């Protein structure tokens, strides 16, 4: 009887007092796409880091082809045919795309042949359905493009096991579809693919089998045909969850909070005009490179606008710095939480109060530690953040919980307009629903939200109106009642241009 290509046997892993995995067992067979689902912090990333030798298991073992192995690190794992694309893209900003892909390839000889590299990079990029210039330096790549580079890197050599940790989190619907096609294709070639995702609909599209883990323990492994979404969610969170993707009625008031006329930033976007009312959720939809982030950055004063006008409560304002934006009551929850959102090595509480330090200082500029802890505790309960205590470094939380800490930081500034850039990227279904509730609650209490999202169901579930962008231009605004996935997509891809 053949052995599974890779298997975990009764693996446990602890980080200090945190038990990230306990008694985990998993078998991967050639030719399958094996989905792994679980809540934030369930231990998915930890599990794959054990498969690739980044972490050594505390107890239990890893088997390759039925034989126990000790993986010293990603190098050895790759040599055994196990490659991974990590949740957070890992590129070399100083190298170009082609070199990024082939930096550790072993079959290209001693001497670098640029022509060959470029050629093969082009092939690989085409294979994953992207268009990306192999000569571009990686520092200018968007998250999605970085992800593409990583996928190409993983495919650049023989893989027997390919692990994808939330590969589609930063991709648009079209690219995500492309990626699923690739995953299926690889499986058809006999590769075992591990596919981690919080987007349940895509699990059903791509996976052959699905494993649910909860609190570091294995709950179930079944063929996809035997699972229903409700059941899967119930297993993940340990209870039944109602229909969370339901649009409730609009709370928009007639009062215009922010209005933007012909806004533009040189070299980024131009001619963006919209109003946001109190109580309204305005969604910004578009494909990657649509420059939605840049719109947000200019409203937040990071890249001040070079054209157009911004009116805040009817008054014309110039937003030249984040401080100016915050003074007005604007907050921006960044899409890049590791680089821009959180001070990872610092404690949770210092991150939560980061933007509002003044509130927890005494007259003499000293920290009021008790107040800070109280604030943190408040958000821990309100946002259901899973953490040991407020002094834990944020970097040790799982991705989703990190996201919540970042949200807490901005809610604490008590903003009137909250700009969310991909607020639910990498967040599990339960947490996603919580974040959506939060956004709704926020607008219901008189705030306004500008939500940038590449997740179409999310856009449809949240947006009172949906503004669609494409390559730095506003393509149109669709009211919620008129919005469909297809309609948004048509605008986003430029096949249609709304007159509104």
């Amino acid at each position, binding site marked *: 009887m053949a052995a599974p290509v890779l298997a975990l046997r009764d693996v446990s892993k602890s980080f200090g007092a945190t038990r990230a995995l306990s008694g985990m067992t998993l078998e991967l067979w050639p030719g399958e796409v094996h989905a792994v689902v679980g809540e934030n912090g369930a231990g998915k990333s930890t599990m794959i880091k054990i498969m690739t030798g980044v972490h050594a298991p*505390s107890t239990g073992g890893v088997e390759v082809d039925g034989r126990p192995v000790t993986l010293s690190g990603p190098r050895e794992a790759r040599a055994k045919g196990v490659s991974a694309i990590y949740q957070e893209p890992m590129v070399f900003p100083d190298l170009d795309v082609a070199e990024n892909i082939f930096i550790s390839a072993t079959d290209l000889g001693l001497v670098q042949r640029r022509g060959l590299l470029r050629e093969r990079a082009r092939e690989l990029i085409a294979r994953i359905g992207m268009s990306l210039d192999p000569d571009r330096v990686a520092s200018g790549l968007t998250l999605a493009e970085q992800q593409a580079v990583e996928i190409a890197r993983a495919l650049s050599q023989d893989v027997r096991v390919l692990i994808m940790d939330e590969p589609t989190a930063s991709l648009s619907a079209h690219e995500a579809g492309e990626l699923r096609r690739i995953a299926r294709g690889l499986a058809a070639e006999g590769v075992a693919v591990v596919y981690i995702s919080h987007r349940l609909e895509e699990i059903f599209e791509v996976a052959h089998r699905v494993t649910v883990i909860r609190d570091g323990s294995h709950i179930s492994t079944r063929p996809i045909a035997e699972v229903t979404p409700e059941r899967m969610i119930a297993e993940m969170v340990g209870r039944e969850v109602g229909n969370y993707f339901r649009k409730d009625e609009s709370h928009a008031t007639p009062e215009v909070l922010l209005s933007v006329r012909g806004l533009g930033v040189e070299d980024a976007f131009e001619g963006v005009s919209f109003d946001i009312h109190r109580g309204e959720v305005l969604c910004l939809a578009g494909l990657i490179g649509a420059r939605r982030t840049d719109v947000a950055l200019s409203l*937040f004063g*990071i890249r001040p606008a070079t054209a157009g006008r911004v009116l805040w409560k009817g008054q014309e304002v110039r937003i030249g710095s*984040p*401080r100016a*934006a*915050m003074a007005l009551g604007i907050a*921006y929850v*960044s899409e890049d939480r590791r*680089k*821009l*959102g*959180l*001070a*990872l*090595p*610092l404690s949770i509480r*210092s991150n939560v109060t*980061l*933007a509002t*330090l*003044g509130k927890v*200082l005494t007259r003499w*500029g*000293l*920290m009021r530690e008790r107040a800070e802890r109280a604030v943190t505790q408040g958000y821990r309960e309100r946002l259901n953040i899973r953490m040991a205590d407020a*002094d834990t470094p944020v970097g040790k939380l799982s991705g989703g919980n990190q996201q919540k800490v970042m949200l807490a*930081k901005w809610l604490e500034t008590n903003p009137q307009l909250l700009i969310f850039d991909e607020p639910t990227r990498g967040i599990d279904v339960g947490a996603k629903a919580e974040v959506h509730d939060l956004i709704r609650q926020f607008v219901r209490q008189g705030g306004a939200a500008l939500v940038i999202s590449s997740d179409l169901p999310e856009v449809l579930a949240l947006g009172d109106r949906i503004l669609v962008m494409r390559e730095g231009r506003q393509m149109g605004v669709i009211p919620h009642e008129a919005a469909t996935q297809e309609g948004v997509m048509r605008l986003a891809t430029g096949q249609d241009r709304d007159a509104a």
Partner: protein
Amino acid sequence: MTRVLGPWETFLLAVLVLVYAANAWISPQFLTVGNQINLFQLSIEKIIIALVMAFVIINAEIDLSVGSMMGLSACAFATLVEAGTPAALACALCLGIGPAGGFLNGWFVARLGLPSLVVTLATLIGFRGLARILLEDRSIGGFPDWFAALGQRGLIGPVPLGLLSFLVLFALLYVVLEKGGFGRKTYVIGVSRDVAEFAGLDTARHKILIFMASGLVASYAGLLFAARVGAVRGDVGQGFELDIITMALLGGVSIFGGSGTLTGVGLAILIVLSLRNGMSLMNVTGHIQTGVVGLLLIASVLVPRLGARLARRAPA
């Protein structure tokens, strides 16, 4: 509550106790009041600057120009006094030199975005050059008695001004760094300037302030030096920057910014000083002392790391 002593500080404390015990055992003079005061006095300028250097490095920058700024202030002071300016006024004026130099450093680093290693390497040369222009090949001494007394005699009992300043500054900076909002910002900016900027902190201003503080303290140290040794030449403070940075790093301040404590730096200072003093009393000559401090620097990072590795090997 956060613990007062982290694992690193505890380790340093243990080393310190060891060094003190060994010194006291070997040399009868070590624990005398006079020697204990000398132990600080001999490096007083360096240790005072090291306290602020901790801020600079935690903020993910470096200031190589402190020795030169110190020299420049001392030289400017001497020039002014020689020209007939009252010493007190000259002191006040020269205390402005460091902040001005620090502002220059900070502006290039924070506003222009140049790496501080490069900027302060250039000002290390430049400020030293200004000091040379002022004094050329001369040496100026003959400061008023009250001024020399401040540097050389006890101010409160046997404790001279320098040591007193160190203690006060330590207490002050401890509170600022570890209990204050300013310190919190210093850590955050040190971890990631982008994150701080996105959270609305004025990171450029903060960095400039820290460089100015570093300059201010360097100026003060320059004046202390002038008072302590009674004469000033163009080479005052030359090469001090490396010793200062060594102390900060030994104290557990991460060269990449974002971590380190003032307690650690304080302990590291005590370790270096007592070790050097002990070796001097045992007649160990200069280059061996330097070598030993070098070894200590490596060992202090290496030992805990190896210890942790061994602990991990051992069955849980």
